[in-house]
């Protein structure tokens, strides 16, 4: 492939990626467009522009070129964020894509211009030669196992030895009614039966509720203005000792 064609194709790819980011709402599709536009093309275009001229001695080695492609792409993101932060709209999807595509196309443009007098270069990326079907299948198998291992690590698992707990809270009730909102969330490992004793101004109210793990219940209790506290004491079934207690100063309601 001629060097000029690489620059043109790179610019076209950057523009396509930017349009995809601007127009497509789906995350997986945009992800596919973002990876080259943000992490490869700006650096690739800059490496081609910077090292467009000169002989073999002044050219970076292949590993250096690869490192620079990634490093300069990261540099574009870092310095680009400082630049966009100064703009009125700040860091937005549209401004990011516009900035990256502009940097990329300008750099490829410099590359085209500077390469008029330069000798053709070797490709930055290593070629996939001698890749036999057996090897390709093995690498695919490795990829499947690695991705499977990672996805497996994301599985949500039961933890039989974890210590379960229960959340109890009390807040001023929302809305016009003067009162408190009392909530219980069961984070035990099994169904739990609760009894809540609510005391305020000499009154007592009992609230019974059964909750499965991960479920919560909320009760709003009207409260008259008085001195002292509104107190909620939570008991678990078959336990006489209080399990949780919260209280709130009546004067703050």
């Amino acid at each position, binding site marked *: 492939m001629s060097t000029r064609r690489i620059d043109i194709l790179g610019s076209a790819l950057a523009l396509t990626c930017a349009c995809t980011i601007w127009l497509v709402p789906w995350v997986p599709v945009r992800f596919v467009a973002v990876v080259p536009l943000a992490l490869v093309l700006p650096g690739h275009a800059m490496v081609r522009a910077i090292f467009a001229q000169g002989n073999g001695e002044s050219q970076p080695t292949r590993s250096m070129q690869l490192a620079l492609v990634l*490093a300069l792409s990261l540099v574009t993101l870092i310095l680009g*964020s400082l630049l966009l932060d100064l703009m009125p709209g700040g860091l937005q999807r549209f401004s990011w894509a516009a900035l990256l595509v502009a940097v990329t196309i300008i750099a490829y443009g410099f590359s085209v211009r500077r390469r008029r007098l330069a000798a053709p270069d070797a490709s930055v990326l290593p070629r996939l030669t001698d890749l036999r079907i057996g090897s390709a299948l093995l690498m695919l198998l490795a990829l499947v196992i690695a991705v499977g291992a990672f996805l497996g690590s994301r599985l949500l698992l039961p933890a039989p030895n974890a210590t379960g707990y229960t959340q109890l809270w009390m807040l001023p009730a929302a809305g016009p009614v003067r009162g408190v909102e009392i909530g219980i969330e069961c984070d035990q490992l099994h169904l739990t039966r609760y009894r809540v004793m609510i005391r305020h101004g000499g009154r007592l109210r009992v609230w019974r509720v059964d909750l499965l793990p991960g479920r919560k219940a909320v009760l709003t209790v009207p409260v008259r203005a008085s001195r002292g506290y509104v107190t909620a004491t939570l008991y678990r079934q078959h336990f006489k000792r209080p399990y949780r207690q919260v209280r709130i100063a009546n004067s703050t309601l």
Partner: protein
Amino acid sequence: MTARLRFPQVAVLVAFGLAIVSAVDCLSRATLNPPPALYWLGVGLIVAPVVVRMLGGDLSLGERLALVVTFGLALYTVKLMRDPFAFTLADEFPHAYNAQQALIHHHLYTPNSFLPVTADFPGLAGATSALAQMTGMSFFGAGTLLLAAARVTFMLGLFTLLLAAGGSPKAAGLGTLVYAADSNFLLWQAQYAYESLALPLFVVVLACAAERLRCPPGQRRSWAIPLALMIAALVPTHHMTSYATIVLLLLLSITRLPRLKLLNDGSTLPFAALALLLAAVWLVSVASITVGYITPVVGQAIHSVYQTITREAPPRALFSGASNQSGPGNTLYEQALGGLSVLLSVTAVCVSLMRAWSEAGRRDVVKILLIAASVLYIPVMGLRFVPAAWETSVRLTDFLSIGVAFVVGWFPLEAFARLTRPWFARSTAVLAVVLMVVGGAVNGWSPASRIAKPTRILAAGRALDSPSFAVANWISRLPRGRVVAPEADAEPILLFGGKPVAAGATLAADQVLQMNALPTWALPLWRRGHVRYVVVDRRTDATSETDGFYFGTDAAGGYLEPRLPQGVASKFGRAHLSRVYTSGNISVYVLSGRP
């Protein structure tokens, strides 16, 4: 051995290693207490095949690059599998908060109440926001992708640097693998924090400088642009790495060291000046808080070194991790692995030095600099015996290990690789690298921090969050106000609760929260500090920013949670504060205003 094991087979074995580590993490999150040896087996299976293949002499440059990239990404995946749902390692919370705020406000520099200095170095948050906004992913997904790119950059940059300094692709490849013996490589350098992005750029700057010095003087102009751009990006990304870059570029400008047969023209001096200028401007105009952040750490380290040398204070016990790490310690064989790793590194450095000294011909400045870094590595490792200098030592070795990687790959390992007949010589080399890497990881983190632990579990088909995460989510519904909390709860409250926090030494938070009785000065101090809510946590782990926010386990699953006395919580009740939330160990009190 090498002839039979080609890259595709290596990739499959590495993937199996990942599968084993994944299984260990799953068992650990399921509170089933997997044997640590299984974890090391998985890590070893990632390291060993790559080293075996790298020792081969018939590899193309492309294959060596593929090997180091695969190796780097595989070890990065080990960290990802530890935290597959959210960033939960040490400094990840405040950095994730910065990225989250950049996504919400579309601007950088939102104040960070937990680690204020991070807000003034917005390179990581800015780059993450680019990926998150363009893809539509969360900051977790975008940060993970960004750091994967940074890890690949690091591996390629390090390989290029070692190749430029030593000239041998095999030694460069082996050296790059040996760098993983740095105790921070497995977890710390893979965490979502500013150094994880800055260190790869630092290495590429060094590699650029090394390659530039190899060019004829008249053809170096092109290199100025990438060097200047990377220096400009390093400065707003991480303070220490940008300062290390200044020091490095200044050292690369040294032109005369007759006894060391130095070959250099001092042409990197303008880049050192540029780095110094940009760092100074950034420090004065944006990040002046950095001085107050770094000075006490360095001051305490120096003071502690003095105290340890003069025996005014006892030395630090090795393998005790950070002072705020908890849980059971390393087993005896893990401690042996850790010690062996350091011993191998130090021995390799000494052997290399003797060989380098007798080498004929002039040496270039990059080689001398890397050898000097490897020599400095030895006394810096000694700082791990000093209580307050331990952390400084760990951070410094991130940079100095580049020198160790060079000398170990350059001399001893390549010498091993040349011995083609005695197969055990190669096996010994492979074993040595595996021991160095595994032992290095042992030296870095306590067992409790190393393997995944449950922050979210499944019960009756529903997801349950750990108590620290639950209180953070609950606090998100409260009206705005500053929260005093122990560190393990403060970090999730900052990120998920969206409230400014005061933790650790700020407003004497840890001191007051752990007292049985409330000192008279505490509440007035907190009121003056605009504190509205107080979070009390009776778990002793609650002061650990690395281990405190997981589900507790009963004796069958590990160890019982040690608890502070009842008084640490009830003292606020005695002061007539409303307790509006409790989940047992954790309670929330309202200090001022309507809850």
